[in-house]
Structure formats: structure tokens, C-alpha cells
């Protein structure tokens, strides 16, 4: 969900996605977790990938959200908010509704 959310800001690549998450306090997303996740999302048609030349260094694999990825991101964010609201209610009231 977080990777898809990061790509809603525009095409990006693995390291930049990890750095963006870390910049928002979400450290600890390892490369060994992020890249296989992006590969699965690519296989599922949620993102597309293309290699672009790097600035003097090796090329970078940029990922772009597809319309299906956009819809999946929206769905996951909605689910997350509902979960957080339910959990918050339980934390406050001590009971579920």
C-alpha cells in the first residue's frame, strides 16, 4: 500500500521510494522487501516499469502506477482508514461496534 501510495506522486524508482518512506518516518523498509514487492505489483499489472539512464551512474528502473494500480491504491487506503478508525474506536471505548 505504501509503495503504491508513493507512486501516486509520479513515477519513481526503488531507492527513491524507500527514501520517500523514510522521509515520512517509515524507516526500516529494506531493499530486499521493496524490490520483490514492486516486482509482484508489476506482475499483477498494478505498475509498469522502464529503465531510464542514471546521471553518470547505472540506469534506474522507474515504476509508474497503472489505472489498475491507482484503483488498488485507493481501495487499500480506504481499507486502511477504516481499520484505523475501528482500532481507534476500540482503543477509546474499549469495545468494538
Amino acid at each position, binding site marked *: 500500500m505504501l509503495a503504491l501510495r508513493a507512486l501516486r506522486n509520479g513515477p519513481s*524508482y*526503488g*531507492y527513491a521510494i*524507500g527514501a520517500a518512506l523514510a522521509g515520512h518516518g517509515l524507516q526500516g523498509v*529494506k*531493499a*530486499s522487501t521493496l*524490490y*520483490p514487492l514492486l*516486482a509482484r505489483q508489476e506482475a499483477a499489472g498494478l505498475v509498469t516499469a522502464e*529503465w531510464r539512464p*542514471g546521471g553518470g*551512474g*547505472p*540506469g*534506474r*528502473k522507474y515504476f509508474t502506477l497503472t489505472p489498475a494500480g491507482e484503483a488498488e491504491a485507493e481501495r487499500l487506503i480506504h481499507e486502511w482508514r477504516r481499520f484505523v478508525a475501528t482500532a481507534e474506536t476500540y482503543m477509546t471505548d474499549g469495545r468494538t461496534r
Partner: protein
Amino acid sequence: MTTTERWIALFSTELERRDVPDERIREEVATVRAHVEEASDDIDAAFGDPIVYAGVLAGASDDDTPSRGTVLSLFIAIAFFIVFAISVVRWLDGDDGNAPWAILSGAGLLAAVAALSVSLTRRAVSTALRDALSRRTEAQWRLSATVLLLVPWTFIAFAALVVAVAAAV
């Protein structure tokens, strides 16, 4: 060899062993290199164990499962062996009509055994490279490779035994 290069050698060897296409291997290696260069990260800290990471990317945990080619070669070798044994015995008993079958199945048996050897050798060499890079003992590789190379040729030894017994009787 630097830590990064050694990691990448292990990683690409493991992907190759898992029958990942060459183009995909090049892409995954390029991704790792690009990340390490930009992040200035220790490659082990970022990606963990290269064998495990290759397994995750390959999407399979069939580490010790023989490839389809190996299994197919084995079954073909068994089939040719059976046909050869039957036809050569009949031929040696004086039924010349079985001669073409004996010759054809004998040739097929040789081809199947050769294919089985190649298949097992590829696997053994691949594993050996991984082990060598992991600094395992060379003795382990030599023993396993020798056994693997000899196993398919037991078919030929048994076929020769069948011929010898049939000729003697």
C-alpha cells in the same frame, strides 16, 4: 573480489541455477548495483543473503527439486533401456526382426543418458560455483560431481550386462 562483487556472483549464480532467464538476471543485478551505488549501503544489510534473495525473486522454494529436463531424460532412458533389453535378448536368440529395435533403442539409450549427464552436470557445476564462492570445501564438490556424472552411465553398464548374459546363454 570485493564484498559486493562476491555477493552479486552468488546472487546471479543462484538465479541461473533456478532457471531464471538471462535477461531477467541482468536486470536484477543492475537493480542491485544501482541501489547499492546510490544508497551507499552495505549490500548484505540492504538485500540480505544473496541465495535467499534470489529465491524470493525467483518465487520458488524448489531448491532441491530436479528440473523437468532431468526427470524427462530419466524416464526416456528407462523406457529405452527396457526396449533395448527386450529386443537385444530376442535378437541374440536368433530373431533378426528385433535387430532394428535393438539398434534404435540402443542409440536412444545413449542419447538419453548423455542428456541426463549434461542436465546433472549443469546442476552440479552451478551448485559447485555457489559452494566455491561460499568457500565450501573443494572435496565436497569433487565427490558429488563424480557421483552425479557416473549415475546415468549405470544404464549403459546394465545394458552391457544384459547383452553379455544374453550372449552367454
